[in-house]
Every structure is written in C-alpha cells, then in structure tokens.
C-alpha cells in the first residue's frame, strides 16, 4: 500500500507564550526570498480561529504553518503535490522539510527563539483518506513504515507511538521521544 500527502508537525516548547503575529512578516520574507524548495505563494492568517491552522504559508507543492490544531502548537509541513519514491522516501521528505522549517524559524531573530521545537514530540498524518483511511488494518499495514521513520529520527532510542483512533480523522500517529533532540541532531539522524 502506498500513501501520499504526508503531513508532519513538530510541537513547539512552551506554546503558551507564543504570539503568532511576528510570524507573518517572517513568512512574507520567505516568499520574497523563495527560501524553501517549494514555490511559496501567499499567507493565510487564522489567528482568530481557536485550535486552528494558525498562520499558514501557502505554497504550490506544500504548505508550511505554525499550527494549533487540537490545541497542540507546532511547525507543520503539509505536502500537497505527490512525491515520487517509497513510503519511507515520502515520510523522510516531509520530516526533513518540516525540520528545515523549524531550523529557519529558530534562526529568525525577530521571533526571539519563541517558536522552537521541543525536540521530542512529532505528529505524522496522511492527508488523503482514500489512500490511507484511518482503519485498524491500514494502521497495521503502515506501522512498520512509521516505526522505521521514528527509529531513524530518534536513533532507535526510546519513544512511544500512539495512533489517532477516531476513524473520521486523518490517519495519524504521534511519537514522543524520551529525550529531547536539537533540530540539527534530528536532521543528522534522519540523513544517517
């Protein structure tokens, strides 16, 4: 079974104090510089929506956002265009893009280090209900893919995995590592 349209979200540390407004000029600069691999197009501001998508940097192949869905604030990558390769390739591509976005945000002086990944909580969703319906058999079928990803990301170290069990929601899995990793460590882990 193949899936596409991988979403990855790295949760931020101390989300309570995060003001999303300073993110808007940052994303505008990203569009000006076209700093990501994807074609960046526009910004959607949903700060007024509780537990919503936050601020979304709309791209052609993918969106980036600082997203507060489920009240869990995180840096999210939403792959919209199909991506060639295996499931593992797609997962790695999305995780890598999300990590690079985290790295960029951490380096943004205007954000004062407020949007910083906690280095241990990551959520992965498959944003296509037909390719990846959120059912027990599908979760089992993809379990090895997800484990392989998290083993790599967290160096085979201690982490726990939990699936989204509401069948109406996207197939999704959360992983929580026992240790916290820096973004550069996570990128290194992923590419090793």
């Amino acid at each position, binding site marked *: 079974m193949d899936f*596409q*349209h991988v979403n990855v979200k790295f949760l931020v540390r101390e989300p309570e104090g995060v003001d999303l407004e300073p993110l*808007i*000029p940052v994303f*505008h600069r990203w*569009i*000006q510089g076209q700093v990501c691999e994807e*074609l960046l*197009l*526009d*910004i*959607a*501001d*949903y*700060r*007024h*929506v*509780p*537990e*919503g*998508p936050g601020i*979304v940097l*709309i791209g*052609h192949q993918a*969106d980036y*956002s600082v*997203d507060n*869905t*489920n009240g869990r604030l995180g840096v999210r990558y939403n792959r*919209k*265009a*199909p991506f060639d390769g295996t499931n593992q390739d797609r997962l790695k591509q999305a995780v890598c893009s999300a990590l690079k976005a985290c790295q960029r945000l951490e380096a943004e002086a205007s954000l004062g280090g407020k949007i910083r990944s906690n280095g241990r909580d990551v959520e992965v969703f498959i*944003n*296509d*209900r*037909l*390719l990846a319906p959120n059912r027990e058999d599908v979760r089992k079928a993809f379990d090895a893919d997800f484990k392989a990803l998290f083993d790599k990301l967290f160096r085979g170290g201690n982490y726990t995995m939990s699936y989204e069990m509401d069948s*109406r*929601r*996207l197939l999704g899995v959360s992983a929580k590592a026992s240790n916290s990793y820096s973004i550069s460590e996570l990128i290194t882990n992923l590419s090793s």
Partner: protein
Amino acid sequence: MKASNALWKERLDGKMPDDLAREVEIFDNEVALRKHGKMDERLFAETRLRRGVYGQRYDNGQRHDGAKVQEMNYPSGTLTKGPMTMWDAPGMQRIKIPGGGLNAEQLDTLAELAEEYSDGIAHVTTRQDFQLHYIHIEDTPTIMRRLAAAKITTREACGNSVRNVTACPYAGVCPDEVFDVTPYSRALSKFLLGHPDCQSFGRKFKPAFSGCTQHACGLTSLHDIGFIAVTRNEGGVEKRGFDVYVGGGLGAVPYMAKRFDSFVPADEILPLTQAVARVFARLGEKKNRSRARIKFLVQDLGIEKFKELVLEERKTLTPDPRWTQLIKDAQQLVESPLREGGETGTDGSEPYRRWLKTNTRPQRQAGYVVVTIALPLGDITANQLRSLADIVRRFTKETVRTTVEQNFVIRWVSKKDLPKMYEALRAAHLADPGAGTIVDVVTCPGTDTCKLGISSSRGLAAELRKRLAERNFQSDEAVESLHVKISGCFNSCGQHHVGDLGFYGVSRKVAGYAVPHFQVVLGGEWEHNGGSYGLPVAAIPSKNIPKVVTRLTGRYVEGRNKGESFKDFVKRIGKVELKSLLDDLARPPAGDRSFFSDWGDPREYSLEDMGTGECAGEVVSSVEFDLGAAEREVFEAQLAFENGQIEQAGKTAYRAMLHGAKALVKINDPAIAEDADLIVSEFRKYYFDTQKFYDPFAGGKFAQYLFDAHQKSGNPYTSDSSRYLIDEAQLFIDAAHSCYNRLGATATV
C-alpha cells in the same frame, strides 16, 4: 494535484445522484480538454465559474511581495484556466447550500474536503454558501464528486447564473413568521438549477426568501428577486402567498428592490420566477457587465413596464407539473425534534448565562430554542465541523443551517439540553457569545483572497472583533445590538450598505504613498430585510477605523434618545456632525509608517511611490486638493438628499463628478476651462480612451458613470436617480483617487 483523484472517480461511481454525477463528469472532461489546450480559455472560465470554481488573488501569476512584483513560476508554465488566470494558481471553490440547510453527513464531508484540499478551514459566506480557498483546479472534479455523494452541488454557485437561493434560517421555527418558507425556497432552488431559461443571463441572479417583513434574516430588499411570506383571506380560507420584490442588489451602487406584487399565490412563484428569468435573459444587458444585473433593467423599464412584460411572458409558458409538484415534494420534508422539549433555568456560570442571552432564541414551538454558533469571520475548522456534526446528531435530528451573518444555527434544541449543549459546544470552541451583536462582525474575504479586494476587510474585522470583545458592551444593549459589516471593496460582498456601521475598502494617496482606507458608511438598516442603505460619510485610513468605531459608538451612547436606533440617531444628529467627529482621523498621523500597511499584512500597501519622503512635511498636490473638494461635494449632495432637496442633490453629485474629472484633466491641461462639455471630452480623451482610468477589474465602469451623468445632466432628478448618482459620484471619485495613485508621483502638479 491529489494522487487519489482518479481513484475517487472509481470509488464514487454509482454513489452520486445521476444528474450530479453527469454534471461532474462533463466538467472533469472539460478540465482535461483545457489542460491539453483543446478548449478555449474564456469558455473554460465560464464553465468552471458555473460550477463554483472561482479565481483567487494573485492568480495572474504575479504577486507584490512587499519589495517587488514577483512572478510565480508555476510547474504548468503558461497554461491558463481563464484569461490572465494561471492553471496552477490556487483558486476558490464555492459550495451552494440552498437555504443554508445541512445535515451531519454533509458537515463531515465539508470537514474532509477542507482538510484534504484546502487549508483546513471552511468559510461561511454572506449568502449561506461555503467557500474553500487555495484549491487546485485539478482537484475540483473530485471535490464535486465527494460533495455530490453527500447530495451537495456546486453547480451555478458562480457565473452568470441563478446563485444560491437563500432563506431565513429560522424558517419554520420563528415565532414571528407568517409561515415556513423552507419548502418554497427548496422548490425554487431545485426548479431553477440548470433550467434552460436561466442559461443566458448577462449577470448573476440571486433569489431570497423571508418569513416576515420586520426582521433581517431574509434580506429580500437587496436581492434580484425576493419573496416575503404573506397570507390573505379568500372566502374565509387563509391562502398562502408572497409579497414579491424584484431588482434589488448591492454592488457598487445599491438598489432597493421594487415591489412586483403584494400577493403572488404560493403555487405561482415558480412560473412567475421563470417568466422573470426569461425577460431578464431576453432584455437584460449582455455586453456591459456593469449594467447587466436585473436591477438596471427594472430601473430602465420602470417597475410597471417590467411587470407587464413578465406577466405577458407568464402567459406564454408551457405548463410544467414541477411548478407545484416540487413544492409538494418539499412540503413532505418536515423537521421535527429528536428530544422532548422542556424548560431550563438561567442559572449557571457567567459565560453560560451570557451565551444563553446572545446565542439562543425561542422557537415558535414551546420547549425549544434555536442556538446560534458565532463563527469568527465565518471560519470553521475541519475538527469543529466534525464536532458540530456530532452535536447536531446528539441533540437534534440534524437540523442545522448557515446564516447570512456567516454563522450556524442549530434548530429544535430542547431547552432542557441547553447546559449540556453549551458544554459540548464549548469543548469544540464553538460557544463564543455575542451572536448577532456588535462583536459578530461580518466581512467578505477582501484582500486575503479576493482578486477585487482593495483593503483588508478580514484583517480589520479580526481587529475590531478582538477590541470590541474586550470593551464588553453588555451593559449597553443599544450598542451591543449594532451590526458591523465590512467589504474589501465597493462590490459589497460584506453587505456594508445595510450595517449600522458599514465599511468598504478604498485607497488614497498620502504624501506620495498609497494608504489603505475604508469608506465609513452610515445610515443603513439591517432589520426589515435590509430596510435602508447607508451612504459613505468619509474615507478613513484602515488603521484608524477602530477609533472610528469607538467614537461613533461613544457618541451614540452619550447622545441617543431613549429607544432610539442607531439609524435614527444618525439621521437626527446629522452626518455633518458625525463627519466632523471623524475629521482628524481622516489623515494618518505624521511619521507613523504603520498606516502604509494594512491590518494583518505587514507589506507596504503599495511601493509604487516609495522614496518620496515621510509623512512629515507632506506636499499635497492640487489633484489631491481637487479630489478632496469633489469628495466634499458628494457629501453635500448626500446632505441635500437627506433634506429632501432631490434636485439639488443630483446636481451637486454631478458637479462633484465633474470636479473629480477636472482634477485629473488638469494634470494634462492645467488651464482647462470650467466647461462641462470640455471637461468630459478631455477626460474621455486622456483617461477613458487611454484606459488610464480603467479599474483593473471593473474596467471603464466608473468613467461611464460620469458620461451617463453628463448626458442626463439637463433632466430632472428623481429620488431614485439622485440617490444612485450620489453613490456613483462617490465611486467615481474613489476611482479618480485610485487612478491618481496609479499614475504615480510624476502626476503631482
């Protein structure tokens, strides 16, 4: 764009109603044809619009990124989905919801689509539709299939067609209604969908239903055709019918609908509307889009002549059994409660009591209430849609509707269930209080996503909503009940004409910089189906609009008489005083650069004129002086109109337009004489023929206002023509400001 598009086609085969399936199949083929260059882009544009597939801002492949105009290098290259509309550019999918009526399965479907194809948000519009933004054109057939499987169509959601048939969301449960208009609105919606007589309009056609005259819910005054429920006694038998209005519409110049007939029997409304559609299709303007709505036809012919033509047309119609059968079918769909009615106290937490006060209203049926969910800016997340679906399943027989105030109402809620429902809504962040109050600001998409947006209506709405919630008007019900309506441009999608406080986006040039502004519109009435339209008082920089709201509401609190509505207060105090209250807000404070960007958008509003200095030490050009004078004349025209000096109002409005035209002509001919013919002909030569005055989207529409006014300048003015001319004069001067902005700093004389 989605990898699963082809699979969905297989998966949903046989699971859609045949007619909808066929429609989507046709469109899917058209998408393929256009993609392979085998269909003309104009034809494709019209066909996609008729399926609700709309363009979005920057879809011409260019975007000003705050520093420069950036070319968007889309993978599909120069392939287009319409003139100047790039194939890959994100677009908007509008979804028709007749009468706003939905069930839980449909809410679940909308949640899935918002999540998988859009940015996780579904947006409720001011006409009870949904919109999904940032959609790729190649995903639209799949979206349509998934909607069709849930018995929703996007057919004729845009384009020159019959748009969503709206209806009072309280129909059937409102204590004040004459009768339930739901079956009639459903029948009309079904009857007109894809009707052959509705396929050759010059512009769109919007029907609306209301169950009463006094409330706003149906907004029939501002629709192309409006139906208000009435009954009459015929031989001791109460007979249902409708008070029918035609030719209303907002847009740049709002027209109040004219009464067609005070009683049209209920079983006659479908053929009557068909006859109206045929007359509109036959005689309505086709070439000039800015004169193509039915309101212009009704105005030009006069309501009596229009009625005569429609009734003649009615006689020629071949009887159609659906005229009555569709109504009978719709009458079978009777709503009922899931749970036994009851009573509840008002005890509970302060937030609960506040919510109870503003977000619930009694039904006609004892023991039940309607609960309103106030959506911020009409936005709802996928998770919230699913929660809402769960809630309506748990407490009702899935009786939920969208409203023209961009909210949801849940009907048939047992009063006994209110505490539990509140908790369920609160858990889903759907229990914000203040539904229908001043904090429940209505707004169109504006510059966020709309190609026509001039100012950030959503940015302003979010800011006002936040500030007004903080101010907490609970102690002053008169202020709390005011309606704030915002449009990003003159086209009125935010219905600013019928707000107590209305705003629409314009631009002005200040010290060489383009500055986002809003025209402040006062005097509108939301109640009585949008009973009167406000007029612009002053253009104020966007960043000063919150102060405008504070001052106007403060003045109202201080100066109103007991029980006096805001509209009556505005009338009594007079616009001269209210305008003077805002005078110091009309210019940005010297040196404050924040005024050069819009709410929620830190980009410079326009960089065309950068480098000409700071606010301090402003040099105001003679063009700006003259345009300012022209604007004052429009205001004088408005005052004359309100004093009943119709002729003087019309003449003053015309003079203001001449003044505005002359301001621009002086750039080319500083010594232009005070001769109306000469000014108009020179304006035509320098600005119309060269297309310099052309609005990027409205074309030469505003220049045409001047030419028409000049041509008719010797004729006496009627109340209607004078009123329209005042609006046209304001729009002409707004366009003159925009033209001057575009000309750049070199135009300064």
